[in-house]
């Protein structure tokens, strides 16, 4: 089995275009997950017991079911309720929701790590709750958890190929489409693997830098 370099160069532009889609989906998905995750973590601190229980249940359910099925669920069910989103957006939303559940646990750890006395002091100063979150708790809770959030962003990156199943042409989707056309799997799939490896190694280094930066606090 020979590795055909000319063929690889021929499909390289397509694969790189796929890589752009992969990175885009990861960035958008991470942003969504970061926002939703924070929301879940704050709701989990609500004074209403029912809200706390509900968020715990939601997080537990999302974390214990496969992303692939969640993706199919959104992809096939949203249109039934009249919500027709572009496929790409559905994919990003699925990634965002799935990882929001994981990230909410990270946020929760960060929030719990803020000493109780901070809450009490803010309370003693008669600060409204929203202000306590914004000015006191979150500025202390967020920096230490940036590296673990980064790790989940990397994990999400490695989950993006799942989006190929609903027809999104990210890296793997492009490779498979190309392979179906030419009946050559070796070159495209090897290339995708190598690209993933490169991205992963670089992002691992990036997270290590983040750790160094925020560890001192």
């Amino acid at each position, binding site marked *: *089995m020979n590795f055909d370099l000319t063929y690889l160069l021929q499909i390289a532009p397509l694969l790189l275009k796929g890589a752009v889609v992969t990175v885009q989906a990861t960035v958008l998905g991470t942003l969504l997950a970061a926002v939703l995750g924070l929301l879940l973590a704050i709701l989990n601190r609500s004074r209403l017991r029912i809200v706390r229980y509900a968020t715990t249940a939601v997080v537990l*359910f999302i*974390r*214990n*079911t*496969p*992303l*692939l*099925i*969640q993706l*199919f*669920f959104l992809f*096939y*069910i949203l249109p*039934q309720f009249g919500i027709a989103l572009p496929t790409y957006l559905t994919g990003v939303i699925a990634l965002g929701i799935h990882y929001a559940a994981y990230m909410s646990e990270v946020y929760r750890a960060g929030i719990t790590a803020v000493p109780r006395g901070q809450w009490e002091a803010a309370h003693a100063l008669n600060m409204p709750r929203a202000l306590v979150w914004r000015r006191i708790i979150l500025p202390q809770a967020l920096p230490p958890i940036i590296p673990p959030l980064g790790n989940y962003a990397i994990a999400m990156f*490695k*989950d*993006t*190929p*799942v989006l*190929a*199943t609903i027809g999104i042409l990210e890296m*793997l989707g492009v490779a*498979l489409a190309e*392979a179906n056309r030419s009946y050559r*799997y*070796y070159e495209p*799939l*090897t290339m*995708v*693997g190598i690209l*993933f*490896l490169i991205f*992963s*190694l670089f992002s*691992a280094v990036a997270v290590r830098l983040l750790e160094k930066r925020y560890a001192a606090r």
Partner: protein
Amino acid sequence: MTALLDLLPQLMKGLQTTLLVTAFAAPLALVMALASGLARLSPIKLLQWLAVIYVELFRGTSLLVQLFYFFYVMPLFGLSLDPVTTGVLVLALNTGAYGSEVVRAGIGSVPKSQREACIALNMSPAMALRRVIFPQAFVTMLPPFGNLLIELLKATSLLSLITIFDLAFAGNTLFQTTGRTLEIYGLVLMIYFATAMVLTLGMRWLEKRMGAGRDLEFRP
């Protein structure tokens, strides 16, 4: 309710495969995790490097890519396995690579004094690992192993993409024949969730059992 019941037989058949694959992949992943985790701590440089390459390769590329690679590309090199074997193998290799880090962290979590005590007692390194270090480390490894087991269960759903009739595949087939998306995928999600909960409870029980009478903190 009856509308849901007629979907169940098919889904249960799929669940059987899902459970079977998980049951085969999990022990294999454990073996890979232990082998590579210990190899990274070995004094032999070659073993260390092999373990690092294995871990980085399988953690650095996506599981789905690995699955397709073993499914489509490996046969070109003469490694032709049936889909289920391929699935079990890839899942085990992937999960094992993540488990490798757990093993490393677990061994690292055993207090240094334990090792020093072993040296003082003139134990060989192998014996110290077997009798003193590993039994203590293993208890701390169990909770992260439990998480990995759930990740493994969820990852089996990807096997539906290499033609394996698992729970996800059963759901997709039913969807194509009946078109009842909401019930089918809702039910599939519920079944995955219930299975994951059972596994979680099992791991909790195991943690309690293995941790009984052990206390890693030294309290004078």
